[in-house]
């Protein structure tokens, strides 16, 4: 129970049946056997670039019974969002179509046969939806109150004043403190969690029979995510709504769903009661999804990957690759570093690092924002330091400051005995190749106009590595091999690769400079879980072979724990706790913030343990 919820002990009771009838709900509640929502043989096609139609949903069947919670699980591109939008009738016109023969029945009505007018009347009233990005899903120029009131006025014909009064009650119900003031707030004045509560308030305003929640917590921090999940579960129970919960995270499912539907590539792989699907999955893909998340206990040498269950789809790093790496000098260098690692000085020593951003305010005033405050740590060679914390805690600033992409305002960064902040530009240029960074978004960190060959040879060109173009190209091919991509990829452009492959290319680009320290800034967070496992395996593999040191920045505690030797927990620019990875997760006494983070891990003690 979050503090926000507990601040409102007197929640209004759910509306009695009679009241709902007055509010215009049709009186044909489904009988016990007839599901509330029936999706049968749903096929959806989209118009492709050539103007033809391409089917992306290949006959999906599932049902949501009244007051039940169904989780629709799948990775990106699985068709789970398309399914939900088809139910809502919100598929984009002209570029998409529902193929004939598909069946969508809601409360006994054939949705596809309904006139647009009646279909619209259902939306928001009987089927409501909550989206992934609360910020962009709320209209930025209207006050929160107006937006909630709008749905009430539309469907229940309330007057403006009545609607606002109801909206206040709804905000109270979803646990927003001081709802009177929030009514007058604009969306951007609220935090992400609060925005999502507003979205939920809007969705439940007309007491829908079915609530569709499309990745409602993905964009939120873990602690907030936990609160929203609890809120949804509670509301559902109180109002006996049915819920279709869409997520990519199997961990969340165990907390919220009665039934689970697993999708991949527009087909349903498996469905059934949550306990059965999570506990004894029949489908290989489901098993793979469950297995590829890092476990919270124990630390297997290698994470299992989807291919391990379903046969190779993407080439992973084959064992023994190191032995065929052409560039021997590269390995000699790093191997030497590894050999002396234990004895020598720590690679990185950070002392009292601080960073203050100044922005002008008013005519003369300055606004100071402290992003980092007195951060100190030591990173030995060949080891991994994990940095965890929620958004805004300063962990990314820390990474950029280590790279000297920001200049620190206080403290110092000693790399291999040299103070980075006092280094001249030339000195830094030489030092730079020893520290490299991998960014979060593999789609933005590769120059889209460069071929992979150009991306990989550019650092060599800049630093004068390699004798000539041919040599550099040979090295680039070797690097690709090292990260488990075929040499043919050299001629291709980043957009032709999947996210996981792109992240491998980004890693290969760093390796081109033969660095000693890699800063991994949320480097696996944007990847689908199955791909995530591959990249994590690759990182571990590279560390073992090349003796790299990592600063691993992430909000995902499970991954941090799996990869790190030591962990920093950061909050508001400060380190609140530091310790070895195992210590942190051992259930002992911790800083309250760390406790909160740990408590928020989805499915903790549930599905993941079973999987581990």
């Amino acid at each position, binding site marked *: 129970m979050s503090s926000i919820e507990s601040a409102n002990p007197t929640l209004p009771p759910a509306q009695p049946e009679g009241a709902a009838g007055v509010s215009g709900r049709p009186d044909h509640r489904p009988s016990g056997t007839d599901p509330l929502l029936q999706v049968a043989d749903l096929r959806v096609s989209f118009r492709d670039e050539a103007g033809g139609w391409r089917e992306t949903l290949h006959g999906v069947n599932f049902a949501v019974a009244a007051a039940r919670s169904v989780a629709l699980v799948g990775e990106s591109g699985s068709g789970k*969002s398309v399914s939900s939008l088809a139910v809502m009738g919100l598929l984009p016109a002209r570029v998409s179509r529902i193929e004939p023969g598909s069946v969508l029945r809601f409360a006994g009505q054939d949705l596809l046969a309904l006139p647009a007018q009646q279909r619209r009347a259902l939306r928001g009233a009987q089927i409501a939806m909550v989206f992934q990005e609360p910020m962009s899903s709320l209209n930025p120029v209207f006050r929160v109150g107006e937006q909630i009131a709008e749905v009430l006025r539309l469907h229940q014909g309330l007057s403006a004043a009545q609607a606002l009064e109801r909206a206040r009650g709804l905000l109270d119900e979803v646990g927003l403190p001081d709802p009177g003031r929030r009514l007058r707030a604009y969306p951007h004045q609220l935090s992400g969690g609060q925005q999502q509560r507003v979205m939920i308030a809007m969705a439940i305003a007309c007491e829908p029979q079915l609530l569709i929640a499309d990745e409602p917590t993905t964009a939120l921090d873990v602690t907030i995510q936990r609160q929203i999940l609890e809120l949804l579960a509670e509301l559902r129970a109180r109002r006996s709504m049915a819920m279709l919960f869409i997520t990519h995270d199997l961990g969340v499912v165990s907390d919220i769903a009665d039934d689970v539907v697993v999708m991949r590539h527009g087909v349903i792989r498996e469905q059934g009661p949550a306990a059965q699907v999570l506990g004894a999955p029949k489908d290989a893909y489901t098993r793979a999804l469950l297995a590829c998340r890092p476990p919270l206990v124990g630390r297997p040498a290698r994470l299992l990957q989807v291919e391990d269950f379903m046969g190779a789809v993407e080439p992973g790093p084959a064992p023994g690759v190191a032995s065929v790496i052409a560039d021997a000098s590269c390995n000699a260098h790093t191997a030497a570093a590894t050999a002396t690692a234990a004895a020598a000085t720590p690679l990185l020593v950070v002392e009292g690092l601080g960073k203050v951003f100044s922005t002008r305010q008013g005519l003369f005033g300055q606004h100071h924002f402290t992003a980092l405050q007195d951060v100190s740590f030591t990173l030995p060679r060949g080891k991994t330091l994990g940095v965890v914390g929620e958004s805004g805690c300063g962990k990314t600033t820390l990474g950029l400051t280590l790279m000297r992409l920001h200049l620190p305002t206080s403290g110092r960064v000693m790399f291999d005995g040299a103070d980075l902040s006092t280094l001249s530009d030339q000195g830094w240029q030489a030092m730079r190749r020893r520290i490299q960074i991998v960014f979060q978004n593999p789609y933005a960190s*590769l120059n889209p106009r460069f071929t992979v060959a150009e991306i990989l040879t550019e650092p060599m060109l800049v630093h004068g590595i390699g004798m000539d173009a041919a040599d550099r190209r040979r090295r680039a091919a070797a690097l690709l091999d090292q990260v488990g991509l075929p040499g*043919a990829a050299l001629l291709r452009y980043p957009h032709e690769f999947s996210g996981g492959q792109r992240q491998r290319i980004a890693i290969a680009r760093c390796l081109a400079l033969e660095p000693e320290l890699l800063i991994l800034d949320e480097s696996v967070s944007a990847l689908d879980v199955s791909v995530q496992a591959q990249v994590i395996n690759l990182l571990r593999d590279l560390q073992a072979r090349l003796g790299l040191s990592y600063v691993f920045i992430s909000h995902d505690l499970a991954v941090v724990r799996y990869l790190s030797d030591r962990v920093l927990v950061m909050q508001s620019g400060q380190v609140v706790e530091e310790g070895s990875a195992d210590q942190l997760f051992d259930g002992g006494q911790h800083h309250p913030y760390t406790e909160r983070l740990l408590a928020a891990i989805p499915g903790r003690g549930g599905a993941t343990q079973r999987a581990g």
Partner: protein
Amino acid sequence: MNANPLANPAPQHPVPQHPAPQAAPARGLWQIAVRRLLRNRVGLASAAVVAAFLLLILTTASGLLARDWDQQYAVSFAPPTAIAGNPQDDDAVGQGGTGSQIDPRAPVDLYGVVDPLADVMARIHGLSAPQAAAVAPEPTSVSGVVDPIGDALARAKAVPKSAVTQQRAVSLTLGADKWGRSVALKVVKGAETSVLVGLAAAAVATLIGTLLGALAGYCGGWVDATLDWLYGVFTAIPYLLLVFAIAAVLQQKGVTTIVLILGLTGWTGVYRLIRAEYLKHKAREYVQAARAIGASHLRRMFVHILPNVSHVVLVQLSQQVVGFIKAEVILSFLGFGVPVDVVSWGSMLNETPNELILGKWWQLAAAAVMMAVLVTAFAMLTDALRDALDPRLK
């Protein structure tokens, strides 16, 4: 975005797709854009029209066509052939025709003034006596002197003035202008000037705007402040006055001047866009990554960012071409048009207000239609280009 075509724009975070490297040849973003363009029927048709114009310009520029646009082919304001036979002699003007009756060779009273060229003139008049005889019955000068340039002179006089008038056509395909020049040739030759002016001016404006915008957006700080000040100054001065002022500075008249006037006043829009693009891209992770591997400022500005904003530059460039072709007309009206030995659509349209009221609509029609066709096609092509290059659709 085939895998998830729900098209909620999230350019930074497109939904991953899994096109595992296939046997198909690698395609850069440019190839994709070209392919997309080729699939756009409207864009393709526009491109064809623009290409046809460019071909036309090549033929005129190389002198294959319309080299003699300045020649007098027909009578003044000869109508288009299609409507000829509908004689409009009622406004043929008679009163001023007196000049044609004057015989330039008739002897005149010198009133006692000594003509320093008397001898030469006498010789010239004498030589041309056979031709002049018809109208000048009393040649006063001695004849029989053998003149060394007699042949040339005779050739020059071989075509009597009246004959020239008779030879001139009474109608032309698209009619004639006031000097009897062919409107068809003018409009074709004018296309060359107008399009070249548009292209060159757009190149100048885009170059300036891109360079300054890149500097301001990338460097920030005092460079940005200074350039923004310059931008502020240029945009605060009314466009019309800026045109006058720059025209005054350039003094010389000619096509180059027009190009410079348009270019020097037109860079601000490009600057603003490119600056914004650079500001955006500077913070992008791929630029940060380039910085992390130690790429220099210049390299980041021009090797990394520029290709990624080049679609903006290209679209701006073609938009400017459209704008400048139209602006040339207004410059002509303001007196900064092309010189008289050059023809452009602007100079043609500028002649038309007076012609229209005389009922001579064909020059207006020809220039306006040609311009409308080209500019429309160019604008549609620009739209197609923008769609094809739109990074959001990648």
